[in-house]
């Protein structure tokens, strides 16, 4: 029994170290670039930190096996509403905008309600922080 508990703990710790992780933004000359993945239960990364005046570029894909979910990225205050159904990280959906007003802005999935799970799709939210 002790051995089994030890194995389970070791596996969980190993898994934590060996998988997952979120991408850090790539600095651009005039802003930041984020590689974002939209999973069934959330955005990764879930917080995008930028400075006022930055050019923000989001390269977005949907998580493996979720193309039919009709995931997307909506930021109402910036007039952004994109659907992201590609899983191909070499060909992501590109969203660009200038962060011209400060504050915390909710990133949500408006298009999810048109996917196979309809309005019952889990609410997905992330935050755009413009300082």
């Amino acid at each position, binding site marked *: 029994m002790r051995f089994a*508990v030890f194995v*389970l703990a070791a596996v*969980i710790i190993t898994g934590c170290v060996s*998988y997952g992780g979120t991408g850090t933004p790539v600095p651009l000359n005039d802003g930041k670039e984020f590689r974002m993945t939209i999973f*069934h*239960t959330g*955005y990764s990364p879930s917080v995008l930190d930028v400075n006022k005046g930055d050019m923000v570029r989001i390269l977005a894909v949907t998580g493996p096996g979720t193309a039919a979910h009709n995931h997307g990225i909506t930021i109402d205050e910036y007039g952004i509403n994109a659907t992201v159904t590609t899983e191909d990280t070499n060909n992501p959906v590109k969203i660009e905008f200038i962060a011209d007003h400060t504050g915390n802005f909710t990133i949500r999935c408006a298009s999810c*309600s048109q996917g196979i799970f309809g309005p*019952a799709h889990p609410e*997905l939210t992330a935050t755009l922080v413009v300082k």
Partner: protein
Amino acid sequence: MSLAPKSYMIIILSAIAAITMAVQNAFHSQVILIPLLASLIDVAANYAKLRKIILPSSAVVSGLLLAIVLEPIPVGMQAVSALIAVLSKHIIKWKGGHIFNPAAFSMVAMSLLGVHTAWWGASLPIIAIGLFIPYYQHRLQMTAAFLATYFAMVSVTSFFALDYAAVFFAFFMLLEPKTSPYRKKACIMFGAFAAIIAFLLNPVQGIDKFVLALVIMNAFTDYLNRKF
């Protein structure tokens, strides 16, 4: 020919995985590997305890559920998911039986490791063939209580829509016999409360509302059996 309920589950889940992969023109190795690994671990665990080989049919079912619900993941993580499911069954026990649905427990644990649910196998064919499972296991009331409560709550906040994940969950995961109640009233309470918890968990990020609701309700199975 009469087959055990688990055999029907294995046949139907395998068919769902095969049909969905064919329709999506994609092959996910985890459909083979997770059930295989779960079976090997289960056989080894039972042999270590009892010194005899026991057919790992429940491990195959858990493996197939993990394979169909989790996003496509690397082989290493497939092994981790199988190991957590099977060991949870052998380690976390109460009154001689395991408490948590092994597949659901593993999915919750995997979400802490950054593995997400995708419900890629939860598509149209399951609605036709999946209803057989709760009927055959005499647990239609649990499935009906869950779906009625869940869709009633969803419809209050938005217009009615068919959520394939909810249907797949209600047909194949909710009613696992060893970790869910057996009395009729308790089944209805179990299904209804699982739906309420899943609905309330909808805004929670990073963890699947259905599997977490099931794991929470599993903890109350013994209480529900005694009370109702």
